[in-house]
């Protein structure tokens, strides 16, 4: 009993430490990659090639003055970033980085991730409201509408893969993929990526924090550590959606020669690189256009995808 708890604790510590470190260095990777795409160097000052930059950033944010606006609703103002970060981090609990390496294995892993992620939206919504300022409210409203609707497409887009795999258990889903699901579900994969971009507020769908329109959207009034929470949560979410894509469509840890978790990380970072690349390339959509894309284009496609998948599966399995 004690041993079990000990192992579980160890797993939790290892995964969260790694997750936080990865998240911190993700900011570094993003700045470096975008920097080189934009004919500049990115961070270079702190440490060799700026390698210590995330630590310096963290220290800076940690020591910054913690400002609470006069008009803000104090309790909610503190509560929102914590909620956002916690929901983002506990998602890591079910991600299987290798066949036997996950904090816990749930038989409804996919549902778990979807449901916890949906609570994460509330953090942003509350942050927007609690700031007591107009730009955050606009940002919060935008993000609520955006994330709620994009969660729907996100959920629908993975149904095809789930139907093929026949399980909600993330480990079983990976094990069932003798051929990667992306081969059977290319449309769903594309929709998933687009919905994921919307879900985690990244360019071209970074409307809740569109810095040129809404200053910084829902976290305009946040500073110091509370801002850092949002920042970390955002990057943690990016890792989560990329891991989900890896597990559902790209065969998770499966791959020849190399150990499983290496394959997982390769696939994961290829997707993350793609997300960063998108950020360097595209302008931002306008809010109404973005919603139109979701409801008028993506939803029908994704529903058709489910129907087609079902029909084909029935025909293949002979009813």
């Amino acid at each position, binding site marked *: 009993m004690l041993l079990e708890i000990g192992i579980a604790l160890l797993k939790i510590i290892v995964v969260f430490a790694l997750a936080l470190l990865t998240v911190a260095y993700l900011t570094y990777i993003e700045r470096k990659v975008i920097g080189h795409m934009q004919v500049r160097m990115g961070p270079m000052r702190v440490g060799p090639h700026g390698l210590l930059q995330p630590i310096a950033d963290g220290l800076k944010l940690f020591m910054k003055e913690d400002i609470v606006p006069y008009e803000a*609703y104090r*309790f*909610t103002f503190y*509560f929102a970033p914590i909620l956002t970060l916690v929901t983002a981090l506990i998602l890591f609990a079910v991600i299987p980085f290798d066949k036997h390496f996950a904090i816990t294995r*749930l*038989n*409804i892993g996919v*549902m*778990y991730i*979807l*449901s*916890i*992620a*949906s*609570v994460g*939206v*509330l953090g942003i*919504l*509350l942050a*927007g*409201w*609690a700031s*007591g300022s107009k730009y955050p*409210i606009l940002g*919060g*409203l935008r993000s*609520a*509408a955006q*994330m*709620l609707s994009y*969660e729907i497409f996100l959920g629908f887009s993975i149904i095809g893969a789930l139907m093929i795999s026949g399980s*909600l258990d993330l480990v079983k889903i990976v094990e069932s993929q003798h051929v990667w699901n992306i081969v059977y579900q290319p449309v769903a994969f594309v929709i998933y990526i687009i919905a994921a971009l919307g879900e985690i507020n990244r360019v071209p769908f970074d409307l809740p924090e569109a810095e040129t329109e809404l200053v910084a959207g829902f976290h305009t009034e946040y500073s110091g550590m509370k801002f850092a929470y949002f920042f970390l949560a955002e990057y943690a979410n990016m890792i989560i959606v990329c891991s989900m894509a890896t597990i559902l469509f790209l065969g998770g840890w499966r791959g020849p020669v190399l150990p499983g978790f290496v394959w997982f990380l390769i696939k994961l970072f290829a997707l993350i690189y793609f997300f960063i690349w998108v950020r360097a390339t595209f302008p931002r959509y306008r809010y109404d256009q973005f919603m139109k894309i979701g409801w008028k284009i993506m939803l029908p496609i994704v529903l058709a995808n489910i129907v087609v998948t079902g029909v084909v599966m029935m025909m293949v399995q002979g009813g």
Partner: protein
Amino acid sequence: MNWANLFFDLFAVIVVILSVITITRRNAVHSAIALMMAFVGLAAIYVILGAELLAAIQVLVYAGGVMALMLFVIMSVKSDEQNQVKQTHAQTLIAAFVGVLFVVEIGVTVWMGFLYKNTGALAKSQLAAMGNTEALGTVLFTKFLFPFEVASVLLLAAMVGAIVLAKYKLER
């Protein structure tokens, strides 16, 4: 067994406390936060009872979706009014009626449970063999297909109604 029981009791107490907070707070957003946490606590109880799918759906639909919509509405209301929800007693009678109905309903369910032991649609042995999610799916699309469809149609009607209302306002 005791660990599970202990946690069950713990979460039950938390949920009750949070529910009380929900209806006593004057600040609508604070009520909403408490309600959300109550939903999550309820989900935890479901997990302890071995109904993981129900727990996930509880969080997804209630704590995620419904709460977001509620907050959305609260935020859209004018900022100086959103704090003080106006208390009127016009609905006392109706509320009392609904409350009594609800108590009776739960009482009957519990009593039936004591009376007939196995009230579920499936026997425990069946559940163990299939797994929670699959069992629920199977039952939903075979035995309870008709009620399921009725519920779907009802929701569809609600959706159409909502669209009509929204459209009407836009056109005006």
